[in-house]
């Protein structure tokens, strides 16, 4: 029955002159002639027809998969399809072997032991497990959690969930450069503090926290230190022993790996205990039950190995591109502010505020560049980015921010084009901005009484 349907469909498609997809072109020239949108390989983007695809400069959101990682995954998908937890036959052993190799690759990247790596579905699950799992395990003696105001939403939301359960949470403010104030952290630690959770590299502004110092403070006070290192691994040198980290969340799709897989580093000496979120057959040391996604895990391992080999080269390449981007824009525009510390920053993240120009309208104009913005209009809640507000950025500047993400595969030509387009759009929007006009006339915007809604 199904084969009849399939053959009928193929016959119909091959003879159908109105095939809509470009791949049909090699089957029928009539299809090519009538395929409206794809005959010249151009696409409709925000109302404008552009040839090719937009430049991808949003590496903090996700990264394209490295072809070498894809090769490793492909191979594994076809051949190692057994359940890695099947103990009784070769298929299971092969799959388990693949998973263990990946475990070693991930562990090497962060200077940990393979026994300390627990594979999960991503950094979100790892963060949830770390925050909730630790506090639930120690709920009788520990009631307090410390985190920062600039953490990723999954950590903040997990903390909010803990608050509803009766725990207390301190959300540490950050300085204007995005870094945590170590004195405030010391003062916030109490005898019943069960966890300190501070992310290593911020996804929005790219600042790198002083991990060794934070780790030392936590060790002195004997408080477990959890870090969300999704944006850090493979990009900056990570050493769990130097950082004195008890738990670390990792994500594959931020380092040119596949989506849907991540890991949690759980220290063994001294041991940190936690309650698992997923109950079941006791896989992954009992901390994450469920059949591991072998192919995803293999991809994650391959991505980590590549990252270890290419970290130094990537950093040099990306740093050059970051300077090219920033200098290119600053040469032609004034009123450009970099959000977050320039000294303690990951080079691939550049979060810029363009004064007097709103973020969403700038994004609308940057049709050929894929970037993201911290402005209110791009979020469903119409609130500007909470990270920028935590930095103490003026509210009008928080609406003007654009985040450029540079990665391993970004080219000089892409950066030059992005600079050209950004400068053009910012100049055009400033001409249309009443704030810019007022500033040119010498009016101080901060002294005006605005009529708000």
């Amino acid at each position, binding site marked *: 029955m199904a084969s009849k*349907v*399939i053959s009928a469909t193929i016959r119909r498609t091959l003879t159908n002159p109105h095939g809509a997809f470009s791949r049909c072109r090699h089957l029928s020239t009539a299809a090519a002639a009538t395929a409206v949108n794809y005959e010249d390989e151009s696409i409709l983007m925000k*109302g404008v027809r552009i040839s090719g695809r937009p430049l991808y400069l949003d590496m903090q959101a996700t990264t394209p998969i490295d072809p070498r990682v894809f090769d490793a995954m492909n191979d594994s998908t076809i051949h190692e399809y057994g359940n890695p937890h099947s103990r009784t036959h070769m298929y299971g052993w092969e799959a388990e072997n693949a998973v263990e190799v990946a475990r070693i690759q991930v562990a090497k990247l962060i200077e940990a032991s393979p026994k300390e790596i627990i594979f999960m579905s991503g950094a979100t699950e790892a963060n949830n497990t770390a925050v909730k799992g630790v506090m639930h395990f120690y709920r009788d003696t520990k009631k307090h959690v410390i985190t920062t105001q600039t953490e990723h939403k999954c950590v903040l939301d997990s903390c909010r969930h803990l608050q509803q359960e009766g725990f207390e949470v301190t959300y540490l403010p950050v300085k204007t450069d995005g870094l945590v104030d170590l004195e405030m952290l010391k003062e916030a630690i109490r005898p019943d503090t069960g966890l300190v959770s501070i992310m290593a590299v911020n996804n929005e502004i790219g600042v790198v926290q002083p991990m060794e110092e934070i780790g030392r403070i936590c060790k002195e006070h004997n408080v477990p230190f959890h870090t969300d290192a999704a944006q850090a691994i493979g990009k900056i040198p990570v050493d769990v022993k130097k950082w004195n980290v008890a738990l670390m969340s990792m994500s594959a799709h931020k380092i040119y790996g596949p989506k849907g897989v991540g890991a949690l580093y759980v220290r063994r000496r001294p041991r940190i205990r936690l309650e698992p979120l997923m109950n079941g057959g006791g896989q992954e040391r009992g901390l994450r039950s469920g059949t591991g996604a072998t192919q995803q895990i293999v991809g994650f391992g391959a991505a980590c190995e590549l990252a270890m080999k290419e970290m130094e080269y990537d950093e040099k390449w990306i740093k050059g591109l970051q300077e090219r981007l920033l200098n290119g824009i600053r040469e032609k525009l004034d009123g450009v502010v970099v959000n977050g510390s320039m000294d303690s920053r990951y080079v691939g993240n550049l979060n810029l505020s363009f004064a007097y120009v*709103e973020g*969403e309208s700038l994004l609308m104009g940057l049709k050929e560049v894929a970037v993201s913005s911290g402005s*209110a209009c791009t979020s469903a809640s119409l609130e500007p980015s909470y990270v920028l507000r935590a930095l103490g950025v*003026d509210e009008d500047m928080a609406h003007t921010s654009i985040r450029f993400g540079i990665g391993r595969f970004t080219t000089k030509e892409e950066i030059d084009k992005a600079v050209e387009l950004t400068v053009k759009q910012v100049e055009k929007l400033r001409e*249309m901005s009443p704030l810019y006009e007022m500033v040119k006339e010498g009016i101080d915007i901060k002294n005006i009484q605005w009529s*708000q*809604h």
Partner: protein
Amino acid sequence: MLRQTTKRAFLGLASRNYTPFAVVSRLYHPNVIDHYDNPRNVGSFDKSDPNVGTGLVGAPQCGDVMKLQVKFDGSGQIIDAKFKTFGCSFLFCLFFLATEWVKGKSVEEVLTIKNSQIAKHLSLPPVKLHCSMLAEDAIKAGVKNYKEKQAEANGETVEA
């Protein structure tokens, strides 16, 4: 249903699924994109001109600031309007419409323009309805400013 899925999956077309673009273009009505790319009625009049009313509404903190200027002739009819905006792309469209609608109207007629009319004309998504309120407020502020200028001028004439 089965036929559709088999057609896509069998010919390996499932990966090249272009429907996300359809979603993006649904988010931005073609009118909105057109008004953003080809802005009309953008600019300024001389603020000190007694026949020009200036309305400045919104706040940078909200990410919405609009300046609407209307030029009247001697008899209280609007002959031209211009705007400038710090805000999202929807505002360009909204304010273009607002400036078009006020042209040729008298002071009383212009005050009857409601934000709901503008929103309906543009099929604004619910999350953007507050922008249409700003358009209505800007028109009212512009007219109020003109009336104040007229009252001042008349007051001076009477006193003189």
